């Protein structure tokens, strides 16, 4: 007998965990709500800190899921407990008898239009970080018209109680620095400003990237949150912020404003979570058994969590979390279903 493991969400965490559990000898069913797999990674162009190609990274993740039953365009319609397992009905009509479920539902990007003062969707030259990645991938965006003055606004929908998200999204600072450098590469004559509240760049090589942005690309870092955006008569944008280091209000005309939209708990993830009886914390992310020692186990037996479903994470952290979840699931299934042990050992000898 082979244990079934259902994984909800085919982003980086779902893909990596599928691959690991498949190798451990489980029958993995991976479902994805959208038409394509890869999550936000599929929409990104290059990755910080070293500028690796996102599509190459995604390709190697997809290579790993050979043998996994993957259903795209599929959602969970209902789920209920059946003994030690879960009986899960999918929107494509398939019923899965899952011995363990892994939630890799990830995050949603903050809807930048909710920050009224930035005028996203109103002004012609205000875009988000995701829009900019799409521009890097496709090479065109009507809003980006050879800009000579470019501003990046950090913390859009992060560290903002008013917008309903108090926490830091962790990846935007690094993304902004990366994108700032990329913009200078794309538009060598441009001047780039980064408006930050606190620069939170803490990983290996991140400081090098920051230094390079300052030294090699001349990115101007201004400590102050952009709080008002208006339109000049020529269609350019007028930005107001405070330079808190100089302790004076500041204004600057820009041709392009990039909003670093932060991470929000996934709305569809929350829907599945409520079907399965998962608990969320105040910030909307799922509660884990223990933030330090047991960060992949949920409060429901047999239900596991990995990736940004339990809070903002960088890509390497997400992948590590997914592998850790695979180990946790293996541990859980070996204890809960000891009769499946022999088959697993047979499988593992084959590898």
């Amino acid at each position, binding site marked *: 007998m082979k244990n079934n493991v259902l994984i909800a969400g085919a982003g980086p965490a779902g893909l990596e965990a599928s691959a690991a559990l498949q190798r451990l000898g489980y029958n993995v069913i991976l479902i994805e709500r959208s038409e394509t797999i890869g999550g936000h990674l599929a929409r990104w162009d290059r990755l910080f800190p070293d500028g690796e190609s996102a599509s190459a990274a995604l390709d190697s993740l997809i290579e790993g899921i050979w043998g996994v039953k993957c259903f795209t365009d599929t959602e969970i319609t209902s789920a209920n407990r059946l003994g030690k397992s879960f009986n899960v009905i999918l929107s494509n009509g398939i019923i899965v008898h899952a011995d363990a479920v892994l939630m890799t539902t990830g995050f949603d990007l903050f809807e930048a*239009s909710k920050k*009224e*003062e930035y*005028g996203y969707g*109103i002004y012609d030259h205000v875009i988000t970080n995701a829009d900019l990645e799409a521009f890097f991938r496709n090479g065109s965006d009507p809003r980006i018209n050879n800009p000579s003055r470019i501003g990046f606004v950090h913390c859009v929908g992060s560290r903002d*109680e008013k*917008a309903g998200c108090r926490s830091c999204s962790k990846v935007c600072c690094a993304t902004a620095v990366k994108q700032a450098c990329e913009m200078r590469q794309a538009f060598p004559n441009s001047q780039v400003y980064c408006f930050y509240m606190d620069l939170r760049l803490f990983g290996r090589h991140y400081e090098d990237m920051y230094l390079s942005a300052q030294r090699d690309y001349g990115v101007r870092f201004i400590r102050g949150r952009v709080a008002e955006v*208006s*339109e000049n008569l020529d269609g350019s944008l007028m930005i107001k912020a405070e330079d808190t280091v100089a302790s004076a209000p500041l204004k600057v005309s820009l041709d392009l404003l990039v909003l670093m939209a932060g991470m929000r708990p996934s709305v569809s993830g929350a829907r599945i979570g409520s079907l399965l009886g998962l608990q969320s914390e105040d910030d909307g992310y799922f509660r884990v058994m223990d933030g330090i020692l047991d960060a992949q186990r949920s409060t429901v037996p047999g239900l596991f969590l990995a990736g940004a479903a339990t809070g903002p994470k960088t890509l390497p952290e997400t992948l590590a979390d997914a592998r850790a979840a695979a180990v946790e699931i293996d541990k859980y299934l070996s204890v809960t279903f000891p009769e499946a042990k022999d088959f697993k050992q047979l499988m593992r000898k084959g590898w």
Partner: protein
Amino acid sequence: MSLLDISTLAAMFPAISAAQASPEVIDRIPSSYSDFVIPFVAGMVFFLCWVSIGCVRIFMKIGPSDQAKFWKSLVNPVTAAKNVKDLFCDCLFHVKIWKRKPLLGYMHSAIAFGWFMLIVLGHIEVALFLPKHLSPRAGGLFYPIFYRYFVWINPGHETLRGSFFFFLMDFFLLYVLTGIALAVFKRFRSIVLGMKNTTRPSTPDRIALYSLWLIFPLRLLAESFTADLSGGSFLTLGMNHLLHLVFGDSLYFQPFWWAYSICLGVFFAAMPFTRYMHILTEVLWILFRNAGLKPSHPRKGVSEAEIYACSSCGLCLDACPMNVQRKNLRFSSVYFIRFLRRHNERKINAIADKCLMCGKCLALCPVSVDAPALRRAQRRTVNNLLPYDYSYLARTSAPAAAPFLGSAAPATASASGPVEAPSAEKVMYFAGCMSHLTPRIIKAVEGLFKASGTDYVFADRDGGICCGRPLLLAGKTDAAAEVIEANKKMIEEAGCGTLVLSCPICYKVFSEEYSLKGVRVLHYTQYVKELVGSGRLRLRNGGAKYVYHDPCELGRGMGVYSEPREVLGLVSDLVPAGHERKESLCCGGSLGSLTLNSRDRDKITEAAVSDLTVNSPEAIVTACPLCLATFSRKSPVKVRDFSEAVLDNLSA
């Protein structure tokens, strides 16, 4: 008190026994006095002294100009007519409550109007049927109250007129009793009468409340015991037969008259310290209100009449948007007024500062007690003294240095000439502070100006001076006067005949406090309505399903309800919200509150959003930058501004 039967009584009161002995005598007066009237008289005298002193105090605190205004208003036929109408509609019939909650309205009007009619009819009865050998003043002030005790008629000689009054008196007594029954019921199950929350009564309130509950049943019993002797109609006579069935011929009436008198006495003695003081004070307040007197101090002069006009009915509890959280009940207007009466400064300030100033309590108050204005007056006592420095306004309002006008010149849609006399054609658009944080409004309003070919200047494109309303709301009236002066100068020098505002907060203060000569002040919803009416904007129905949110300052604040709805009705399929117009809920973003924190505000926003989306609209449409930004962050459905909704549906 032990019950007495008629024989003991006869021994105690020779007059009564004499009366009993010769039943053929009509209009027998046992006496025009009995000891049981003492409690009532004592209570009433105390009450009247208190009221007289109170009136003198109030009038002494009112300035001479306001006094003159008041006396003039009494003789002015228009205000006099309004006074009479308001006194009947507000004090007696409680029309405002009827319109919202019929059962509650019935309860209030039954007690108020019923009691009023009992008193009036009682006095008429005395005047008409006063025994011949008694001078009109013989009975003193208690005589009409206990008329049925003092006057016994011969059952065989009932006059037609008498029975008519007997019927009326019984009818109104029954009317009051049904009201009292509802009031007792409301204490336990207020929700049936449409009230989720009711006021927590104070100890004096309880004393007065229980005596009020008892007054009318006791009156019924007392009058019923003697109804066969003193006359009665369907109620008292029927009750009389019942009592005879139960007690035989023993008449235990004396204790009931005592009890009735004691309850009345207690009620009137307690009245000045209770909510029931409103019964008289609201008359004074309505006269003040209609004379146009405004409170200048939170509890002295006009305000004293106003705060004692509050009946603690508690309608403001359910009205208050803060009360989505029960912990905020204590910040409601009814408690604010209660603490004003008690001079509890600490609590007064805490409540005054918390309020969102949405004005819903005022809109729903049966006697229009303007609690938001009292709160502003209270805030003024604290905040108006705080130092500030607006010396920069003097520099900026000089025409040459005016930064807003200097930069507004290129914003003119057509060539702007030199400053001339105000022309109605020329429009000045003043976006206000808040609209600068909601670019979608500015962009769409300018779009509408361009589409309609309006000749406009954008006064504060690069930022202006605040309109002054937030300062007024905080009680900083002196500071507000300075910014108002600066803005006024700027507008008058610009020579525009029409001032269009996109923020209801600005609109309210520009309309009410600026007195701009020759300048029409319009909210953009009104201006767009005019443009549509004159054919300068042609609209098509885009078929979207919208719900309209009434901003507090625009709706309740300025009474602009229909213009935005009429225009939105032309471009979309407008669905109703759970609460509309003057009942609408505050978005939670109001600048009115000084101390409400953002978490509590979020709760109000969530409640308002769910109320707006009961009919599952595609978008919430509002006409205020503050509401827009507040909803935008919390709403699961799209939030749009009025101007955007119109701009999207222009027909070529």
